[in-house]
């Protein structure tokens, strides 16, 4: 694994930001997750410290205390440069069902027109690619996904909707993603995923972690209704594949 030139910046009294080169890059993300793993395992207590990894950064937030910036910065640099050999991290690919029927994919035909293609071709492209989770934020369980093919890049809607339904699968710019809850939003909606990404009844409310991958597969309306009920009563098993196995 190559080592990057990391930049450490102050973020108020209780947090510190570690920055990697400003790029959306799988190897950078892997390096961030490796460092996060070592920090948790060897250096920082998980009760006192929260860690938020996103794209090219890792933010360390102390629960109560104040950070001595220059001392902590030196320690982090030392820990990073003396990091042990990379470990195999548990990362998963989650295969999520999506119903692209017009009832859910309310912007599918508009997007198809704008991209000069057919709804079938859009569904084909959307389900053929695998997306990397570069961050989780904005809303509880909202995944920032990278890896959208150029041919699916679209403009946001000129007028955002006041209420996009929970589970809506959207396209906007270089991004695709799932609305984890009812929310206002300006993305083009092409389908709906019946399985909740975020569930407060689980010890870990969001099964996805930064660094995981997401793939979508098409289901029909009947399967959608069935999976929705299965998910509600807690008997739906999401397909997952270990990436690093």
């Amino acid at each position, binding site marked *: 694994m190559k080592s990057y030139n990391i930049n450490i910046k102050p973020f108020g009294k209780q947090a510190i930001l570690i920055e990697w080169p400003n790029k959306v890059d799988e190897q950078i993300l892997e390096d961030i997750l490796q460092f996060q793993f070592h920090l948790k395992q060897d250096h920082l207590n998980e009760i006192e410290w929260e860690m938020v990894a996103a*794209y090219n950064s890792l933010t360390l937030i102390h629960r109560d205390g104040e950070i001595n910036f220059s001392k902590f910065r030196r320690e982090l640099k030392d820990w990073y440069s003396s990091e042990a050999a990379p470990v195999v991290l548990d990362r998963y690919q989650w295969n999520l069902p999506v119903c692209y029927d017009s009832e859910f994919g309310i912007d599918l035909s508009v997007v198809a027109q704008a991209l000069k293609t057919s709804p079938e071709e859009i569904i084909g492209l959307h389900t053929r690619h695998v997306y990397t989770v570069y961050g989780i934020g904005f809303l509880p369980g909202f995944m920032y996904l990278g890896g959208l093919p150029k041919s699916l890049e679209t403009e946001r809607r000129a007028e955002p909707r006041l209420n996009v339904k929970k589970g809506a699968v959207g396209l906007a710019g270089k991004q695709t993603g799932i609305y984890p809850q009812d929310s206002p939003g300006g993305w083009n909606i092409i389908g709906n995923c019946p399985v909740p990404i975020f569930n407060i009844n689980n010890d870990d409310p969001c099964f996805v972690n930064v660094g995981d991958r997401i793939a979508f597969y098409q289901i029909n309306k009947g399967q959608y209704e069935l999976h929705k009920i299965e998910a509600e009563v807690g008997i739906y098993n999401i397909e997952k594949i270990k990436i690093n196995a």
Partner: protein
Amino acid sequence: MLKVVASGFFSTVQDIGRFNFRNKGVPVSGAMDSYSAAIANSLLENESSDAVLEITMTGPTLEFNEPTYIAITGAELSAELNGNGIKAYEVHQIRQGDILSFGKLINGFRCYLAIKNGFKTEEVLGSRSFYKPITKLNCIRDYMELNYDAVPAFTPKIAEVKAAPFHKVSGLEVQYGPEYGILSDKQLEILFSKEFSVAKENNRMAYQLNETIDGHSINMLTSATLPGTVQLTPAGKLIILMRDGQTTGGYPRILQLSKKAISILSQKKYGDQVAFEMS
């Protein structure tokens, strides 16, 4: 149990916050003016993590069905017990059937009602702080009930404390945010010499400020944000994230408010003046 006779404008149950789920996009939440909430809890010799009611601008009317003790802190909201004015920042005994109501907002914006041993409302992901849809409700509703322990007798060690004068303070103590370095001399000059006023867009998620500074054309990758993070939009607008603020964002984070400054700002309403002070 306590019955909400009338819910008022916007009141929420809050504790010190919901920790350890920021990596899943869950805001910290918790009392906006954490100092005033902590004072109310300490008067009652509660745990610092006990839940209080955060009352914004216009108070509710509450009927107590069990004896207990309460303390009120933060914004001055003309509290009355059974129609008689009661003082804030001291402990009051509550008897079964007592009615607590609030009147005119005298100063500040958020008032805290603490109850002996804290409110025992539903705990979700380690916290009782309201944040929809993590919790079912975003604020209290008419006729709903809030649970608490019956406490017939309690002798407080401290009967009364001085009020935190946050409504009188306009200075917000700040430290460097990660993108502080992008600021030009001109932007810095304006940020630290001018007063800014709170915009209409102010709530538990974020406070926007009316006055702008020069904008920027920096395109950054989404990264973590915190309560108290001051974001600068490309158009030069300043947005200060608060306790329910999103956990990631894409705008440069130029400054970071101290914990105390978040409390001070939480007592500001539309039109109030604030000034940044680098510490």
